């Protein structure tokens, strides 16, 4: 099943666009095998690797605050060949270049696995909220976005977006064995650049919502009331009719105004 393939393609086009716009873009190629990935990291990754929360005073850089801008998504496909396994792309400044600042943050995780399907969708989506699994990195508990912190200690150990990308790959590949290929894109160049991703994210979110709805339905739970216009297949019909009505009312108002004058 390939519900997100078109969006994966759009991400590729986005990266090319950013490159063409002259944004500083860095590419990292990292080991693909899980053990090799782990071994290459300067920090610990796994359950309890970051047991303590990162306080404000311990923060090296804040990523994706509401003020700075954030956009995150996970797109999956059952065609691993669509994904450049082991590739990490960074558009914008890295951790070491942003000490003490609050950066806009876009994080796109692309995963591919021949056996990936709607049943894995929720687990894949939740995996990006890493909780305490990455030493020196805390994703804040904010439900709509990835808003995170890198600790000063981790930065001193050389924590970078390369590190973060590898860590995410360890988290995903170890908790989701069906993931065969994984690619990560980070965007920290500007709020506008990050928010540009919202178009793709919204479409992905809508597709994801349908998958979740079907998942629950298959389990005997109907998440949505049928009276919700948004879920109605004939919403377009009503939208068209509304336009007709709006046109008529506008004509009437103009005619009334002319009569009055």
């Amino acid at each position, binding site marked *: 099943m390939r519900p997100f393939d078109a969006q994966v393609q759009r991400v590729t086009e986005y990266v090319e666009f950013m490159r063409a716009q002259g944004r500083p873009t860095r590419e990292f190629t990292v080991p693909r095998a899980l053990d090799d990935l782990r071994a290459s990291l300067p920090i610990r990754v796994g359950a309890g690797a970051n047991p303590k929360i990162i306080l404000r005073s311990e923060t090296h850089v804040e990523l994706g605050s509401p003020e700075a801008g954030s956009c995150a998504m996970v797109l999956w496909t059952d065609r691993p060949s669509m994904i450049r396994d082991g590739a990490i792309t960074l558009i914008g400044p890295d951790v070491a270049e942003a000490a003490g600042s609050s950066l806009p943050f876009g994080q796109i995780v692309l995963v591919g696995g021949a056996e990936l399907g709607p049943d894995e969708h929720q687990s894949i989506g939740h995996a990006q909220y890493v909780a305490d699994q990455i030493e020196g990195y805390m994703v804040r508990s904010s439900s709509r976005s990835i808003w995170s912190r890198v600790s000063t200690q981790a930065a001193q150990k050389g924590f970078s977006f390369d590190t973060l990308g590898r860590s995410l790959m360890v988290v995903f590949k170890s908790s989701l064995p069906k993931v065969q290929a994984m690619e990560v894109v980070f965007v920290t160049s500007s709020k506008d650049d990050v928010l540009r991703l919202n178009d793709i994210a919204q479409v992905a979110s809508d597709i994801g919502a349908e998958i979740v709805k079907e998942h629950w339905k298959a389990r005997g739970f109907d998440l949505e009331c049928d009276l919700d*216009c948004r879920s*109605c297949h*004939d919403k*377009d*019909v*009503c939208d068209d*009719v509304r336009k*007709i*009505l709006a046109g008529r009312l506008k004509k*009437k108002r103009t005619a009334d105004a002319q009569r009055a004058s």
Partner: protein
Amino acid sequence: MSEAHSNGTRVVGVCGKGGTGKTALTAMMARALAESGRAGKLLVIDADPALGQLSALGAKANRTMGQIREDIIRTARAGNRDAKAELAEKLDYLVLEALNEMENFTLLAMGRTETLGCYCPVNDLLQDSLEKLSESFDTILIDGEAGLEQINRQVVRRLDTLIVVSDPTSRGMETASVIKDMVEREGILDCRSLGLVFNRVAGNEELLRESAHKIGLELFGLVPNDERIAAFDLVGTPITQLPADSAGQTAVRKIVEARVLA
């Protein structure tokens, strides 16, 4: 209560419990209005999904608003841009085509819809068209067989007069009381004047007056039981063919004079 319709059109609605003789009463009211010479151009709207007024008034089946609604939904669903644009242009003509021109009045049947779904904007569109159409008429009489909500959603939102019909039964009066609450307390429909008509009355008039008073509805009139109405209904003879001096028609004429045309 509302202000009068700005264009001076007088709008009267008839509703009440099923089986109280609303259809026959409305047909008699239509005749009384037409014959009074003071109703001007009269439009009778049959909001009965079963098209009861057609036979009561001796009219032939024509296109209904329900069918037009189906056409709109079909075009909006499957039509191309040109078809949709054409729909916007010719909607008012479609509604005109649904009118049934009789000798002294015009009849429009709401009919019913087959397509499942809310399609509230379609109702809004039709209501807008209906409002435009009503400007051409001096008096509109609505047989609200399917209830107040249907009148509000699909026909008009404001009435000058709402006549609640009951027969001399406690169930009929209970419904009348509920309708009163819906109008006065819940504001389901906006109307200037609200009153009760007892239909099929056969004695006990004082008791009926007291009942009306008890439920807080002004008594507009009492229409005596007329065996001929049932007989006409049975064989499909239009109610409008009742003798002009029949007790029922006479009573209705008085109600129309006092409560609608006054």
